[in-house]
């Protein structure tokens, strides 16, 4: 087992462990922090999967911006601990959800069975994501050439979201 395999195992375990921690932690802020750790593990996995650009973007956008916004909202709301009430729904719902999640997992694994058992494609092959500085260029090509229309649509979506949030915030101020 080389260094890459060890790191893969560590970060894969970390991603799963922190995901479970998010679901089971009562305190919202601690759950958010565990989710940040989960995202960082995923970013490391992306880097190990020859996607350094996505790995860094994951840290920048998800961990650095989205989750900070989350924590900001949690702290601004100053949510009181919800008394003695459990953080979870009733036991029946938990059991049902557990069953459903297990079923979902089984279904996905069963479905993935039909994927071609792909061997590791050479990273520098034409059409592949590429390595090093090439990775940035190739992802940019995929993004701005084939995905140009989607890119514009996503831009419009983000703008719409910004305007929507502004409207929501403004209306409250007037009342």
């Amino acid at each position: 087992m080389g260094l890459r395999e060890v790191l893969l195992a560590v970060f894969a375990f970390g991603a799963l462990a922190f995901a479970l921690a998010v679901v089971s932690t009562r305190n919202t802020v601690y759950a958010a922090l565990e989710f940040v750790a989960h995202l960082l593990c995923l970013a490391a996995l992306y880097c190990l999967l020859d996607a350094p650009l996505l790995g860094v973007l994951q840290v920048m956008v998800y961990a650095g911006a989205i989750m900070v916004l989350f924590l900001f909202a949690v702290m601004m709301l100053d949510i009181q601990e919800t008394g003695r009430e459990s953080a979870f729904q009733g036991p029946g719902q938990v059991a049902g959800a557990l069953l459903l999640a297990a079923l979902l997992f089984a279904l996905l694994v069963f479905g993935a069975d039909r994927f071609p058992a792909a061997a590791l494609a050479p990273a520098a092959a034409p059409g592949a994501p590429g390595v090093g500085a090439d990775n940035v260029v190739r992802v940019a090509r995929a993004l701005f050439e084939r995905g140009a229309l989607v890119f514009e649509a996503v831009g419009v979506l983000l703008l719409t979201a910004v305007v929507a949030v502004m409207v929501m915030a403004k209306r409250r101020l007037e009342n």
Partner: protein
Amino acid sequence: MHTALDSLNAAMSAHPLLVQALAAVAKTVFMMTVVMLIGGLILSWVERKQSAIMQDRIGANRAAILGVRAWGLFHNLADAAKGILKEDFIPPDANPFLHTLAPFLAVSTAVVAFAVLPFGGTVHLWGQSVDLTIAPLPIGILFVWAMMGMGVYGVVLAGYVSNNKFSLLGCLRATAQVISYEVATGLTVLGALLFYRSLDFRDMVAWQMGHNLGQVPFLGHLPDLGAVLAHIPAWGVFLQPLGFVLFFTATIVEMTRIPFDLPEGESEIIGYNIEYSGMKFMIFMMSEFVESLLFAWVIVLVFFGGWSLPGLHLGDGVAVLFGHALPYASGVALEAAAMALKIVFFLWFQMLVRWSLPRFRYDQIMHLGWKIMLPLALANLAVTGVLGVLAR
């Protein structure tokens, strides 16, 4: 003596891997020494002395060892001793693990970002080419931004786990300010990146060294100026003057220094670090100095040509300064000196800004960030992009 050197040369030439490994260790040790020495020690002394000079005071000068005062340099040692010996207080309701983690997160993210900053080009040692960067990443500048984004967590954690209303309010101020200006810091650099066509700091510096203003579209075609401009290096600051001014402003907000120091506001509105004492408090202070060095470094790399010195060209084993041949080693030394001087200049300039301007009001900071800097940065980027397409 001569034989020892010869045998060293022979051993190094025979083991290329050894050269690379030693270079990696040496680069890391050098960078960490520079960061810790400047960020941890020298900047706080410079700040004391510079503010004193600007305010017509003498500044800290009492600390002495055996009567030697050394211009107040020993005050840093006294500060360190005080920080270590002071009681490390953790509020009873705070989570001790997270309370301790916060200052380390704040400083370590800033320190880690230095791994992708080059402090020179490529040097040739015993037949091996060594990049003077700890981790030469092709996406270097994105890595710096990512680490900046992670640095917010130190402040967020400090404010939240202290279990104190004032630190929570301070941390809300800090978070909103820092994430607002991350937008500005990102967008203002993009204009320069359009010229360099790379996210790698080494490529940016190489582009700036390899071009002059006469080669820039539109500028080079000006009838009389074209020939004159050909003698001016194409540094980012000449290509993107507005981008530079905006970026410099945004970095000062990012490191929450005085005109924008609302997160801590040490003189009246206390901030996120009030429940910290001793060394942990000093680590928060240190993270600010480390960030100020980080941003000075990034500004020099992106906007001021990095280690390039106009008139100096380094070839393969030869150095030429305005047409005169120089020994290669002195050429390398000149480049290093140019880089160091530029960084020192920007550290000084940051201090100058800090001690010249009064603090902004919070709504003024937000107004500046979202209603002035963001549209200006977007306009700058759009104009640069359109001109770039027209010049094709």
